[in-house]
């Protein structure tokens, strides 16, 4: 299959290990991955902060760039982010319609039909749950709100994680409760966000996991940022990285919040 990857703006700039792992995983599974280089951002930040007019050109740009990719023979688009896919699927057409651009709304809907979050692509489209990964660590999974309630990915990520050799999956208490990120919410209502984060971190710590994973770098940035501040000894790793790990390429050293010591 020919798959175009959405690096996501956050993934491109701050957390490249997630889209990199996505590419390597899909290539390992025998697929051709392309990277439409003109891509920038899905527009989620603008939409969710209330800048729906400003979001319009961003949405149009995304729809055009990936529309060209489909025209060039791409079968599916994947993003290692539940919230970006949620924005593509549930907000792009709304932004276009609000501005009275029905043509763009239709194009957005068509594109959205073939745009998938990573676990959806693997389980629903490619039909795999065992991706041949090896990750010998104690892991807990935080189902991010957009994966859970916007995309309804259900237990797909858990199916994938259960098939990973060496991985010990432990349950996260109150897993379905938001970690408190919410984009600009974490800045505009930082104190409330922190109170939510505190409970999420408590749940992660009491799970005794060494790794907290999720399908969205933004939530991981939030939970990981808190765990790092506490020097808690628990790290956050994107689901894609776990699935891309093999016994020859263990990514367990990818400690995001200690990058200076790890990466050149």
């Amino acid at each position: 299959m020919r798959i175009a990857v959405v690096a996501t703006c956050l993934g491109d700039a701050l957390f490249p290990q997630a889209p990199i792992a996505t590419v390597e995983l899909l290539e390992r599974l025998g697929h051709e991955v392309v990277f439409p280089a003109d891509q920038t951002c899905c527009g989620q930040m603008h939409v969710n902060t209330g800048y729906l007019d400003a979001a319009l050109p961003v949405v149009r740009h995304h729809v055009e760039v990936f529309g060209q990719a489909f025209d060039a023979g791409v079968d599916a688009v994947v993003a290692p982010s539940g919230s970006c896919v949620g924005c593509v699927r549930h907000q792009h057409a709304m932004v276009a319609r609000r501005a009275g651009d029905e043509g763009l709304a239709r194009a957005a809907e068509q594109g959205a039909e073939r745009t998938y979050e990573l676990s959806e692509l693997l389980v629903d489209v490619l039909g795999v749950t065992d991706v041949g990964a090896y990750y010998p660590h104690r892991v807990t999974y935080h189902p991010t709100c957009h994966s859970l309630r916007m995309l309804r990915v259900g237990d797909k990520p858990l199916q994938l994680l259960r098939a990973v050799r060496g991985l010990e999956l432990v349950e996260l208490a109150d897993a379905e409760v938001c970690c408190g990120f919410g984009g600009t919410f974490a800045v505009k209502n930082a104190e409330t966000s922190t109170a939510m984060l505190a409970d999420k971190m408590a749940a992660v710590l009491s799970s005794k996991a060494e790794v907290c994973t999720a399908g969205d770098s933004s939530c991981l940035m939030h939970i990981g940022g808190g765990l790092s501040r506490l020097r808690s000894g628990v790290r956050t790793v994107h689901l894609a990285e776990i699935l891309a790990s093999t016994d020859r390429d263990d990514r367990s050293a990818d400690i995001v919040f200690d990058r200076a010591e790890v990466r050149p």
Partner: protein
Amino acid sequence: MTGHGRAAERSRTIELGMPTPASDPHRHLRGTEGFPAAAHRALADTQLRRNLGHATRTIRAKRAGVVAELDDWEELRRAGEAIKADTMARLPELLVQFEERVTARGGVVHWARDAEEANRIVVDLVRGTGADEVVKVKSMATQETGLNEALEAAGVAALETDLAELIVQLSHDRPSHFLVPAIHRNRAEIREIFLREMPDVDPDLTDEPRRLAMAARAHLRKRFLAAKVGISGVNFAVADTGTLSVVESEGNGRMCLTLPDTLITVMGVEKLVPTWSDLEVFLQLLPRSSTGERMNPYTSTWAGVTPGDGPQAFHLVLLDNGRSNVLADAQGRQALHCIRCSACLNVCPVYERTGGHAYGSIYPGPIGAVLSPQLTGIDGPHDVNATLPFASSLCGACFDACPVRIDIPSMLVQQRAAAVDAHTRRTGQDVAMAAAAIAMTTPGRFKLAERALGVGRVLAGRKGRISTLPWPLSGWSNARDLPAPPAETFRQWWARTHGGT
């Protein structure tokens, strides 16, 4: 409608027949400070945090249990959503039909444009009876209008009879939840309040909930039995039969609806449903979502006046007070579908931590965050209600819990847009958002912007993490690190490993 349009309307050059924001004479729809400032205090109140955490956790578990009993829950939700959408599409006609039925059955129907008018009507009616005390059963509409204050000013004592409402009234507090306005109080605090404020209370009162309930019974019993005027709200009103209903638990509603000679009911116009059989949907959705029971202990229905049974004078006040303003918005009007079950409050991680007072309005929680600013309109950039739509992480738990499928997350986004539209001058955030939009549509600039990330690496230094950021990002860095930007972006990695770009 844009925020500018709404702001203009607030200046009250009101045209006749045009949708109009609510009047709010007693500031029950707007707090005195924005959400972040109010939340700051609430978050520091450890007793409040514990009380709310305990109560919402209890009710969430109960709700989940009884919802799981019904295998047609999703179908009921869809029916509830559709009935309300249909009602809104025919609201004026249905109201006229309803008025006709109520009148035919001996009720007197009054119409009120705003809070003051509703209060005036009720005060005049009470005066007409000569009563100097009225018994009230929980009604959001009269809280919204500030009826108790208006009655008091007219020398009439208004006695709240719902237990939680009584607690709020006795402690001179404000309600913080639809169903349990005193949810922020625990049993020990309630005992304290009763001992302090109930003249006839047993001094040996303990904090056992049963004993507290008995104290409320004793306190109110004589006054119920002697009441001349009852004032109620409505849960559902049926257009084609003129039937009204009150859904409750304690029996105080039955007392108010049955014992007085005169019953005055104040009803927001959105409480209507088209037909009697629609109740078969809502009487399943509401109790399970609200108290987490299969059915609440008592639901009373009545139509007009029944000779020989109950009040022989019945007055119904139909209230607009900003509802027309909400109805005028194609998406925003969903807020009028709300049946006030409070399920969205109970599942909201923000509400659970800040409580209802932080929202300023008597309509708190996720639904309040979209309803209050629509009722009042957003009155310029400093309107505290403009902060409400941002009091959410958009986690979506409210939609899943809502028995009538109100798409609160999408409405929050939409109300954020209205708040942004109300900016009369460009804020720093406006400028940043505009700049980001330009960068995000010009791939060359996006790459350039990414290169600026090198600054972040310098900020992070050898530690590899960023622990302090300047305002407004300091809110983040007060509790969270930010990783140093990577040495190589994805784009650079792709070029190195796959070529091109």
